[in-house]
């Protein structure tokens, strides 16, 4: 799941300055789950922005709110057509993907980000989220006992642990587990410690072209003659 967090109120207030009518657009999928941009957060932001405006005394904005199921597909955005015609800007509380899809769908209206898309991760407990995947496109979890050193090691090294590990924690943050110690312990438990003794050559990130695209459909001609 994509994890994001709402931008500071000052920043949001700054970016909306030029626009009078602003639609606060929530997304009902990942950012709802991580408490950054679901219906509840949209409503909270709406209340907070109105309060800020009332206190600063410059009441120029009017806010409306709406939450779609998903912002990252055009089809979900169709319901917005009428609403969008009535506003000067959209503040999207979707992830970076959502912001871009909304912008693409409504080319004539400014779309502003309301959250910082942070990482892909999981809920550790209520109110705490941890990063788990860097979407590197070259998954090595089979060798590392299902624990990703790219994301969970501060250095992201492929041949760990480094000399900075101490009592199973990382030198960068002593509350954080050393990913490579975790990997070692799990490999030991799985009786696959030989995987620790191998050397993994550095990865060549240059071979990954950006933006990436995955094509799943086969290249066949469509038409009446087929089938």
């Amino acid at each position: 799941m994509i994890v994001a967090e709402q931008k500071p109120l000052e920043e949001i207030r700054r970016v909306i300055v030029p626009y009078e009518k602003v639609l606060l657009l929530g997304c009902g999928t990942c950012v709802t789950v991580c408490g950054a941009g679901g219906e509840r957060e949209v409503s909270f932001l709406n209340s907070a922005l109105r309060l800020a405006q009332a206190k600063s005394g410059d009441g120029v904005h009017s806010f409306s709110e709406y939450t779609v199921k998903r912002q990252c597909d055009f089809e979900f955005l169709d319901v917005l057509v009428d609403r969008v015609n009535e506003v000067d800007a959209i503040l999207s509380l979707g992830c970076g993907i959502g912001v871009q899809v909304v912008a693409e769908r409504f080319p004539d209206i400014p779309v502003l980000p309301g959250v910082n898309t942070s990482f892909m991760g999981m809920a550790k407990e209520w109110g705490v989220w941890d990063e788990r995947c860097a979407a590197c496109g070259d998954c090595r979890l089979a060798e590392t006992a299902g624990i990703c050193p790219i994301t969970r090691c501060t250095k992201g090294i492929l041949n760990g642990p480094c000399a900075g590990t101490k009592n199973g924690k990382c030198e960068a943050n002593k509350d954080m587990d050393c990913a490579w110690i975790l990997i070692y312990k799990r490999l030991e438990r799985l009786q696959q410690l030989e995987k620790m003794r191998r050397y993994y050559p550095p990865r060549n990130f240059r071979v990954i072209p950006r933006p990436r695209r995955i094509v799943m459909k086969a290249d066949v001609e469509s038409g009446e003659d087929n089938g």
Partner: protein
Amino acid sequence: MDNEVKNYQANRMREASHGRRLIPPCQVACPLHMEIGEYVDLVAQGKVLEALQVIREGNPFPSICAYVCTHPCEDACRRSQADKPIAIRALKRFAVEFGGDRMIELEAETTQSEKVAVVGSGPAGLACAYYLRKLGYPVTIFEAYSELGGMLRVGIPQYRLPREVVDTEVQRLIHMGVEIKTNTRVISLDLLFDMGYKAVFITVGAHQSLRMGIEGEESPGVIDGATFLREVNLGLKPSLGEEVAVVGGGNVAMDAARAAVRLGAGKVSILYRRSRAEMPAGPEEIEQALEEGVETMFLVAPTKMKRGNGRLSITCIKMELGEPDVGGRRRPVPIEDSEFNMEFDTLITAIGQAPQISEDFRLRLGRGSTIKVDPVTLTTNRAGVFAGGDAVTGPATVTQALASGRQAAFRIDDYLRHRYPLIDKEEKGILSGELSPKTIEMIRKIERLEPPLLPPEARAKEFKPVELIYNWEAAVDEARRCLRCGMGAEILFQDKCATCLTCLKVCPYHVPYLAEGGTIQIPADQCQACGICVTECPARAIVLRKPYSRRHIDEELEHALKSAAESKSKPLIIGFCCQYGLFGTGALASLWREGKAGIWIVPVLCVANLEEGHILRAFEMGAEGVFIAGCGEQCSRENTAFWVLQRVERIRKALSQIGLEPERLQTFNLRTAEGDIAEELDNFTERIGGLCLASVIKQEVKS
């Protein structure tokens, strides 16, 4: 048509559609299907007038039920699975007394021409007359005795139901235009039809005591329970002598024994052929009888009696319990050669009663000489003749009789209007199921508060009511124990649900769970309606089945803001206070009336239902300070304070980003031992005053 009647008729449909509330077990168990959850909730908020209104909608004579109802609702109460049931009847008594039930005047207009005769003025007859009047029919009650009330007057002793209560209800009926004919025994139904009555409701009760069928039963000194109680209740003082025996184990036996104590009998013994566990009398009745010095002899039955030397010599046989009978109670079996003799001055038989129906009525009778009726329409074998109450069921409870009277009124209305009877469909949405052990574990155990009783030594001398009324605080505290069955949370918008598992993680009772298909389920029979998941749900997909939380707070807040704007008092402070336990209108409102003109209270039903939006809105509309006051650890729900603090921290963060001091938002725990809430509130008001001044100065410096 009268509102109350319309309400009743709409009731069933409303129950299905109104909110998505499930019918709680107490309401299902009540013969009148009163909205018990509703009025208990209102008592918990101290809204006693509204509670009485709900009670009156479902019950024609709440003051009577408040005294004598056998409260099957309490037997069904699900709190008994965690500790003890809610004292529902006592709470109703509180609402009736404090809500001013006796001041209520009712009127009814005659809108129909068909006259209806009600034969018998017991609870069923009175209820039927009441509803028929509400429906606009001219009604006449025929009563054989000199006063109305039937068993309410001649069967139930005064210490359980004071006569004034019956009198008040009868006066109310007369005021509604019911015609009363006392000292009038109906001997022929044909005559009634000849007199122009279009329908007749027979509800003559079951006044005939059953005979034991043993030798010597006719001896002087033997009296049957119904006759004895009738004499006592009509003000006669039968002389009983020193030692009295009562045969039987039902409520009539208890009443007879307790009445005998009050008439001055030295020793009163109850002879019952089974053991205490099988006694049909209400447990409270038995308990109170024992407290008053009544003795009990179990597993004995009289076999013959003889009068001699001015005393009764009674031969009894000992019994043992055999196989359970059809009713599930173990059958008493005599032990051979175990006869023994005892002597008493008087023996009261109370082994059951049956109706006595005149043959001239030409009604088909069933088992135990009861009138045979269709259970749905209450029609008898004769056209236009309906029957109900004990005459149909055999001895039953007052509430059952009231329900039967009400049913008769509506069926008679159907009959006279040539309507196909509107039969109550099988009710949908009944809350069923036991509480699971892990839910029970998390439910806060709160002691049941009983209303005070007269001390036994004071009771035995007179016929004054034994049970006293709750005081205000005790009633509110008792009502707060209600688990609010059927009002719990549900995922109303499954399409919005992101399956984020927030509800599952925040529920203090571990109720929501992830079903196999990957959807979240919130089992209604486990939910405690605390509302935490409703407010925390990031998708706003969950609602409480009783939709009061959000809208209710919105309305109250707008109202407070409007009033505050009109009063122009400065600095404006908004206080969100839990309404349960009277905090909203009681403890804090009194402080605020005492000169703290700037404080406006917004009552909320548990602060756990308060959303960030509400608080931000208060600031937006000009509040200089906001405080939240709940009952903290005294809350009847688990963990509510934690969630309030979570939200408070979030808002404080937003406030400081906006440039407002976070200390403008405060929380107070009411009902804590330490600290004086009035003083804390004073300090808070002062601090807010200081902050206001500081911000004014800051602005002036800026300009």
